[in-house]
């Protein structure tokens, strides 16, 4: 009956309860939707990085990672790649050549990263072929062809069928260059990537540098599920234990390759929880105020309950229950509305192109944000609301306990 009294007490002053429930709901909607927006942004950035840039896992010669000297290839790369393909969590593997180079046209030049790829393999690992906006993706048939990003094309003032000159140092350190006809221009959501990457055929790149076409200095691995990245890295570390011990290869997950991105994901997570805490602490003061008013208005009633034999522990529980019911109602309303908003924007996306498309793309983000809120965040919100409600109820409950029944009974309402 204590719970029934607490619940019914909530609705005695409907307006006051509605105001505080609305405040809690708005606070939670703001927090959850903000988390959905930020998580959506970071998710898309991570997914884009995995899909277009780094894949889930990469393997290199450890010496290559020091300053990306092209001569440090992966010993027996083909065999290593075939072994990796047998792992059931691995979706695709691409063996690449990679080096820093200068891309130039008649009027400008730019430092770029050049990838030598096998188009059929690369298509399995990277989604770049889906971002071709002019021309076509590389095919194995057309020798000395290239695809470049839209930003780079603009910077070098190059268009379709124009030739981009790629200048690089070969294995002996001699500067060499080749002219590559542009067969396709891509545009991803990351302008920085588009401005600094050139893709050519691996066989062409190997020839230019004096390698055999079987040589590779990067193995990119795409998994069936991003969540299995860590476990696959552990498995591969076991499989290639000898090669790793001999410093022939090093295996890295995407978050080791892009530590800034990993930090960003973590910071966004912390920020969401911090934001939630700040909102709830602010709401706690409103809850305390509401409950203090409720206790003061019901001084005589509490006196009566005490006189009738309701113990102090139960009086305390009554106020705590009432506060928790009030807060949970607000939280429930807030979470339900948040779920609807997050669901809507997770399907249709939140289009920011009218205000910040260029700005977002320039820092690697898509201008359409697809919201995502983890179940853990909803759970944490619910737990924190209950915790804050219990803490907020302490002051009003203690005030109620200080009442003397004989005096409280005679209190005028």
């Amino acid at each position, binding site marked *: 009956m204590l719970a*029934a009294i607490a619940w019914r007490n909530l609705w005695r002053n409907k307006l006051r309860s509605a105001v505080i429930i609305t405040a809690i709901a708005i606070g939670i909607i703001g927090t959850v939707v903000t988390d959905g927006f930020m998580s959506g942004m970071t998710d898309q950035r991570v997914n884009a990085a995995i899909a277009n840039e780094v894949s889930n896992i990469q393997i290199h010669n450890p010496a290559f990672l020091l300053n990306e000297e092209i001569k440090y290839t992966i010993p027996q790369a083909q065999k290593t790649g075939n072994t990796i393909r047998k792992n059931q969590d691995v979706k695709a593997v691409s063996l690449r050549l990679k080096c820093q180079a200068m891309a130039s046209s008649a009027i400008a030049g730019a430092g770029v990263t050049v990838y030598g790829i096998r188009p059929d393999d690369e298509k399995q690992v990277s989604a770049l072929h889906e971002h071709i906006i002019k021309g076509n993706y590389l095919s194995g048939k057309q020798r000395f062809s290239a695809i470049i990003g839209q930003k780079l094309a603009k910077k070098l003032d190059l268009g379709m069928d124009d030739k981009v000159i790629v200048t690089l140092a070969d294995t002996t350190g001699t500067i060499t260059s080749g002219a590559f006809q542009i067969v396709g221009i891509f545009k991803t959501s990351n302008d920085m990537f588009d401005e600094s990457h050139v893709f050519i055929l691996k066989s062409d790149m190997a020839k230019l540098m004096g390698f055999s076409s079987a040589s590779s200095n990067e193995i990119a691995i795409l998994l069936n599920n991003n969540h299995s990245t860590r476990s696959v890295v552990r498995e591969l570390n076991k499989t290639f234990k000898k090669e790793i011990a001999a410093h022939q290869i090093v295996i890295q997950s995407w978050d080791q390759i892009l530590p800034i991105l990993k930090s960003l994901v973590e910071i966004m997570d912390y920020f969401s929880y911090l934001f939630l805490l700040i909102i709830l602490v602010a709401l706690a003061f409103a809850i305390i105020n509401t409950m203090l008013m409720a206790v003061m208005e019901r001084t005589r009633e509490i006196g009566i309950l005490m*006189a009738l*034999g309701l113990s102090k522990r139960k009086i305390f529980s009554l106020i705590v229950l009432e506060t928790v019911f009030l807060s949970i109602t607000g939280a429930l309303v807030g979470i339900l509305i948040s779920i609807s908003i997050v669901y809507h924007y997770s399907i249709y996306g939140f289009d920011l192109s009218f205000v910040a498309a260029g700005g977002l793309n320039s820092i690697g983000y898509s201008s359409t944000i697809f919201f995502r809120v983890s179940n853990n965040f909803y759970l944490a919100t619910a737990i924190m609301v209950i915790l804050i409600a219990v803490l907020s109820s302490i002051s009003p409950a203690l005030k109620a306990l200080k009442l003397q029944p004989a005096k409280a009974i005679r209190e005028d309402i």
Partner: protein
Amino acid sequence: MSIIEVKNIYKVYNETKVPVNALNGVDLKIEEGEFTAIVGPSGSGKTTLLNILGGLDLPSKGDIFIEETNLKDLSSRQLTDFRLHNIGFVFQSYNLIPVLTAKENTEFILQLQKVPKKERIQKAMELLEAVGIADKADHRPGQLSGGQQQRVAVARALASQPRFIIADEPTANLDSRSTNDLLEIMAEMNRKYHSTFIFATHDQRVMDKAHRIVTIDDGKIIGDETFKGR
């Protein structure tokens, strides 16, 4: 046998700089089954005495025994528990729990006493029947008249079969008809269940029903009359 024995009690309130002596050496014995009215002018100490008899307040000096128990020896928690099991209350302003129905209000004490649900619903309905308000069992106090609310308060006070019932100005807010009905109900309960009633009142109609009238003034008992045959 005395159910209540008050021995030389004093009550001094120190809420302001000037101490107020509300009770000045009161001795009183209440026998089981009595229908007693404590009367006196405003500020005479009636309510203070009633609060002490009901275990809502403790005397500054002196002892209050309910049968063998000296209330001054009980802790706050024990005193609350003692009230729950031994004392029923009827207040001037009805003071029902507004969010509970008449039946739930009557059941409330029984639930605190951990009486099984079936038994307490049966008991509550019997009492509401006895005070003539069973048809309003599912009404909340706000849907009842003053007289009806006070009947529920009487049913609630009787629900736990307390040792005695304290009623502070129970008819002060009632019209004549409701007052007569209520007094008749309480007199009936007194006859039927041998319940002990102690009233604080100004109301002549209550005094006319009382078996005993204790008059108090300036914190002292100045009169104590018993009326046989009422």
